[in-house]
């Protein structure tokens, strides 16, 4: 494309867009470091005069906030944070592993007659609410309610199309000839997939893992309907603060939200170059 310089007007437009984009994030972070008295002040306080980390402390030691004369935090968020890590990491690992095998199959052996990938893909379109109902019914029959096994099973099934398609698009870019060269060296076809192709799609594998992790980490509804006493994840805990004691715990909620968001923004930054491909199921390569 033809390049030109920024004029004053375009620079101003960019600046306004930047403010609009970053303001909510700024507000969230600023709320997370507000002492209780500033949480819901009228008029709202933009930048706290005395920033504090009490909200973050309260997440893991609920009594800490009492020093400020605020009650109502009964439960530490520790369980939710650990729960999110457990469910997201395990589900992402299984989903990407299965996805990798399926992707090799689809990319290297595909005969268009039996590969009906669009059906798999459509799975992404089902409103979660629509599949949450059947899940709850079957899970309550099989004692999978309120268990990590149940939640992880759902996460794997829901993200599998995603990991399969993204990895397939990376593997498709490598010519089959490089595997055949290895086969001339005496390797089996399957060994060739894993010793030749796999190392070459390392970057794609990392990006896929990161994106699937983001999906699992962000998921709310399934965790919400499955969880009762044993199971908890960050989004569930976050929404709990809103319903149970809305209006009083802004800062603590915001602190948890910041903790939940930070790894994704960081991770997203690392896979920026693969983001377009990931979000479009490989329809856009770069």
């Amino acid at each position, binding site marked *: 494309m033809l390049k030109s310089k920024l004029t004053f007007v375009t620079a101003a437009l960019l600046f306004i867009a930047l403010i609009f984009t970053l303001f909510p994030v700024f507000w969230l972070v600023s709320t997370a470091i507000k002492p209780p008295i500033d949480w819901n002040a009228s008029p709202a306080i933009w930048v706290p005069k005395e920033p504090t980390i009490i909200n973050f402390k309260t997440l893991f030691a609920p009594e800490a906030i009492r020093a400020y004369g605020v009650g109502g935090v009964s439960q530490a968020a520790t369980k939710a944070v650990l729960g999110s890590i457990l469910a997201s990491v395990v589900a992402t690992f299984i989903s990407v592993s299965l996805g990798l095998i399926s992707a090799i199959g689809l990319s290297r052996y595909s005969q268009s007659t039996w590969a009906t990938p*669009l059906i798999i893909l459509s799975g992404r379109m089902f409103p979660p609410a*629509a599949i949450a109902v*059947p899940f709850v019914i079957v899970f309550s029959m099989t004692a999978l309610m309120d268990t990590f096994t149940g939640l992880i099973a759902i996460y794997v099934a829901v993200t599998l199309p995603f990991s399969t398609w993204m990895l397939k698009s990376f593997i498709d870019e490598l010519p089959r000839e490089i595997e055949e060269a290895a086969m001339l060296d005496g390797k089996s076809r399957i060994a060739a997939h894993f010793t030749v192709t796999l190392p070459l799609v390392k970057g794609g594998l990392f990006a896929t893992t990161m994106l699937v992790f983001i999906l699992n980490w962000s998921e709310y509804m399934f965790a919400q309907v499955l969880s009762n006493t044993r199971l908890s994840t960050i989004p569930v805990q976050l929404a709990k603060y809103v319903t149970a004691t809305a209006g009083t715990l802004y800062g603590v909620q915001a602190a948890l939200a910041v903790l939940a968001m930070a790894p994704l923004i960081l991770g997203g930054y690392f896979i920026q170059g693969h983001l377009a491909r990931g979000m479009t199921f490989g329809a856009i390569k*770069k």
Partner: protein
Amino acid sequence: MSSLAASAPLDIQEPAEGQRPSLSSSEPNLRKPPGHQGRFFTVPGQIVSLIVLITPLLVALYMSFTDWSPTRSSLKAAAFVGLENYKELLIYDNRFLEAILRTLLLALICLSLEFVLGLSLAVLFLRNFRGKSFLFSAFLTPMMVLPVVVGYTFWMLFQSNGPINQILTLIGLGAIEWFKSPALAFSAVVITEVWHWTPLFFLILLSGLNNVPENPIRAAVILGASPRRLFWKVVFPMLRPVITVAFVIRAMEIIKIFDEVFLLTRGGPGSSTESISLYIYKLAFNDFQLAYGAAAAFIVLTASLIMVHFLLMPVREQLLDKGR
């Protein structure tokens, strides 16, 4: 890269396009066509999908023909009512039909706004300026934020004593009770959704703009095309496939919208901002009308499948392309 060095003999033999059975029939590995063993590669994934997704769907399908509610009886004891639930939903349940229409309206409004804003931003990014890569990352940030967090954050922003009202007061428009009127609550959802997902349009459209070939543009410039004509007559038509992908992907996502609405308005006031996902959720998990909810879910699933079929038609080639 010993494998690349070893690929030399293949070039001499001029492999036939796409298939290569006759390459070197003396090699036992290559002689076998890569046909049947490949089927097993997708088996684990398919088993998982089958057990985890299909089984519950079948149970729910059966259930949708009964009058079961867990507060009244066991599923076995529930009476079979045939298509009663479906009839009720499609003919008498205005809340259901309104939720469907509302979700489609939300999709239409949000996608239009996201497209216009995303395209404008992407066009600005065609220029050279300092700090461009920082700004690029900054503009993608909203996409990384968890939907629940987005919902919660905007709920704070739209509070009657929140910062948005503060700004509105400052510029003389006065504070607004965002969540008390249906139209304003709906606008709040739209603003939230546009903030969250405009970056995706920006990302996709920018990658499309950057891949537009330069020669037609050079030619148009030499022929004296104005920048405006250049954009609309030369660049825009070449962008069309990318635009289609962006719309299709976003349409697939937005009709599922739940988290943001749930945390922002809970569907209120009344049921005036209820999306279809939120309505089904409330049916099943607040009112415990599981059978009725399952029927609603199946109607939405069927409609989604049909819609996805038509939505994917224009991008089928791009998705199925073998990537060569």
